[in-house]
């Protein structure tokens, strides 16, 4: 087999990788904001849940989380009479989003806390409700600060998608291993795959840079 013949199956796998990355990055971002803001909540219950979520998903390995959702959750469901067997794609996206969301939540919390105190005081002086102060004053200044670490996390997420191949999801890593089994041409296949991941990471970085420039405008007051 010439190396060009590897491209079709590998590109099919790469498309799955792209989809997994997009979905889990978006869900991860939603979780980041929910639990990052939750950790700063004055309500102790919301705060405790957020801290628990962040510590559990940052403190354990992604592969452990993935295996737990895929292998252990159905057993737990059986014990209480529920069918919790997740299709690989759901378990994969869920594990990736929950994992990256926990890291993202710390970024969100850090950026919100880094907004100067005088900003909150001014919002209060102008009789803003806490909600208005958060969404109208703090977040527009904090989000641009979150973008560089979010860019790193997005690339991290892309790399992490390779692990879903271990629960038999047909992503790029899975296709590569399949092809290697079939042809034994490890050097060519894995070199190609490494460069494909590198290419995707470069594109993702460029997209995140564009996004960074876009939200950078929020840093300054607008109407």
């Amino acid at each position: 087999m010439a190396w060009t013949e590897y491209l079709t199956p590998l590109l099919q796998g790469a498309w799955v990788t792209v989809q997994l990355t997009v979905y889990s990055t978006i869900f991860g971002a939603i979780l980041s904001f929910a639990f990052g803001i939750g950790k700063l909540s004055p309500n102790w219950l919301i705060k405790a849940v957020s801290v628990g979520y962040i510590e559990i998903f940052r403190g354990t390995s992604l592969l452990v989380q993935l295996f737990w959702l895929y292998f252990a959750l159905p057993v737990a469901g059986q014990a209480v009479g529920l069918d919790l067997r997740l299709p690989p794609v759901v378990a994969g996206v869920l594990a990736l989003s929950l994992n990256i969301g926990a890291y993202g939540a710390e970024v969100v919390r850090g950026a919100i806390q880094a907004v100067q105190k005088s900003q909150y005081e001014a919002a209060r002086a102008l009789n803003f409700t806490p909600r208005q102060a958060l969404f109208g004053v703090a977040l527009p200044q904090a989000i641009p600060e979150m973008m560089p670490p979010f860019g790193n996390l997005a690339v991290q997420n892309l790399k992490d998608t390779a692990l879903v191949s271990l629960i038999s999801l047909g992503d790029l890593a899975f296709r590569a291993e399949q092809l290697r089994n079939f042809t034994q041409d490890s050097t060519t296949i894995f070199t190609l795959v490494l460069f494909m991941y590198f290419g995707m990471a470069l594109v993702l970085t460029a997209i995140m840079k564009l996004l960074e420039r876009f939200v950078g405008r929020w840093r300054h007051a607008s109407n």
Partner: protein
Amino acid sequence: MLFGFEWDTSSELAFAWSILPILLIGLWVTVQATVLGFVVALVLGLILAVLKGAPSRLISWPANVLCEFIRDTPLLIQLFFLYYVLPEYGLVLPAFMTGALALGLQYSAYTSEVYRAGLQAIGRDQREAARALNFPSAHTFTHVLLPQAIPRIIPAMGNYLVSIMKDVPVLSVVTVLEMLNVAKIIGDRTFDYMVPLSMVGGLYLIMTLVASAGVRLLDTRLPKQGLPLK
């Protein structure tokens, strides 16, 4: 039975208690892989950092590209690459060694940045002062720059040590019997994945919380102004 330990499936609690020693054997492999991978990352990272800081573009540019390449590609694929490709060139390593090498390689891209940032954080005036006092450059590095850089570098390195620990389960794909792989085997044989996998999660949580507390303690204990020299 695994590693000579029988499991007791009479109740969930008895099962958990009976497989704990088996998981702890796996945990010991995880710790070994973490430490070995960390050492490789520290050495390779230092080499990369020196190459990236080389005065000649001919050296620093390829080193930067290589570093970016390592950082942007998944550990799993790098592991497969080393595991399947190295033997084709006559270098046959045990799976555990290949795994530690892959971990070290992946994290060398990160540690090289830590070295660079640690050295850059020291003000230029320190270098100028050393020069004004006629210190030889090797002496400046070992007696002026390094003692100030080390307290800045250690906490960041500690965080990567924790990250490496969390990446060790990836080595299970090349048959390394670390903790997650052991739990998976127990699950495969007893059809109860819930108990072993939850226990692995719990053990990981304990390890990372302890390790993170250790890093924080180290951070507060290290003298910010630099290590005193005798």
